[in-house]
């Protein structure tokens, strides 16, 4: 993580000096993570791709506002968070679409692809704020303080959302994980 921050900082500084190629490297480094983060929040590929584009464009245009270049990642996910929840507010009726049931998947041993689908479904059932907390912690590896910075809320709120989400997921996923075929 430290090496990543150092490289990000160097790339940010070069991009600020006008080296578009340096920003291209930043994009290629983060676009997949940002896309998957957005995908799990808004549950729509097309929206996620459009939002990814928006996120990186806004980040580029406001790169000079980034106070600490080494903290590029939390800052980038802060922009992604804002974009995702802005879209969800505009589409509130569809935003919390009912995910597919996972009941049938619990009956037998699970293959990796099935387990992946079950996890996606379980995540989709969580409230958006709890789901986002899981995404930032489990998949993006941010510390609680970084998550608080991204979500603009206290660390206690971050922990509350994350712990509640883990309790819910534990009831669904722990039994599946026990039966999974590695």
């Amino acid at each position: 993580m430290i090496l990543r921050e150092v490289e990000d900082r160097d790339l940010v500084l070069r991009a600020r000096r006008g080296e578009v190629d340096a920003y291209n490297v930043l994009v290629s480094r983060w676009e997949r993570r940002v896309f998957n983060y957005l995908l799990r929040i808004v549950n729509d590929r097309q929206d996620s791709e459009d939002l990814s584009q928006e996120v990186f464009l806004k980040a580029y245009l406001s790169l000079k506002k980034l106070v600490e270049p080494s903290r590029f990642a939390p800052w980038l996910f802060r922009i992604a968070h804002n974009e995702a929840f802005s879209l969800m507010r505009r589409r509130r009726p569809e935003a919390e679409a009912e995910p597919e049931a996972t009941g049938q998947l619990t009956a037998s041993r699970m293959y990796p692809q099935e387990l992946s689908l079950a996890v996606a479904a379980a995540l989709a059932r969580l409230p958006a704020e709890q789901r986002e907390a899981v995404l930032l912690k489990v998949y993006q590896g941010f510390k609680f303080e970084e998550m608080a910075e991204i979500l603009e809320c206290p660390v206690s709120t971050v922990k509350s959302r994350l712990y509640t989400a883990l309790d819910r997921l534990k009831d669904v996923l722990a039994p599946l994980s026990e039966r999974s075929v590695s």
Partner: protein
Amino acid sequence: MNCNHADLKGYLLGELPPDERRQVEEHLKVSPACQEDLDRLRLTHTALLALRDEEPSRRIAFVSDKVLAPNWRQRFWSAAPRLGFASAALLAVAIVSHGWLTRPPQPATPTLDAAALERQVQAEVQRRLPAAVAQAVAESEARQTRKMAEVLKAAEERLSLETRGQLVAVQEAFDLLNKRMNIMYVASSEVGGAR
């Protein structure tokens, strides 16, 4: 530490400071329920990691767009080393310009136009060639005439000498014949006188 205070999720996620982490580990040794709960959290975490990343169907396009690249003025002023290099370049240009503008006057050298020069040469050759050829032919003819005259003269002289020689020989042969006839006449006269 009791079960309510054990931050098992913080422990699992690696967010606890070392001393608090040790306390949780001590508590897990005496609390099978918390150990079981931690095992279920680990299974949940493992299951979550089974979620596969998806690939975006298109890449971020705008980053290669030249519109986003700063213009030359921004690039120029954004880097101090470049500014230093530009200053050095300007200084070099000034020195070279000064040297050029203050150089001593040099005689103007005619500009040679190879094509025009070639045309002039061709025209002069065309102009002079017939006369030169005529002169050469005339000289050659004169040389031939002189040589012919000399040969004729030599031939005439040789023929004259030969003719003169032949005439002398005829003269000599006639004189010899005349002498023999005289001798025969004298001899016949002497034979007749004696009878």
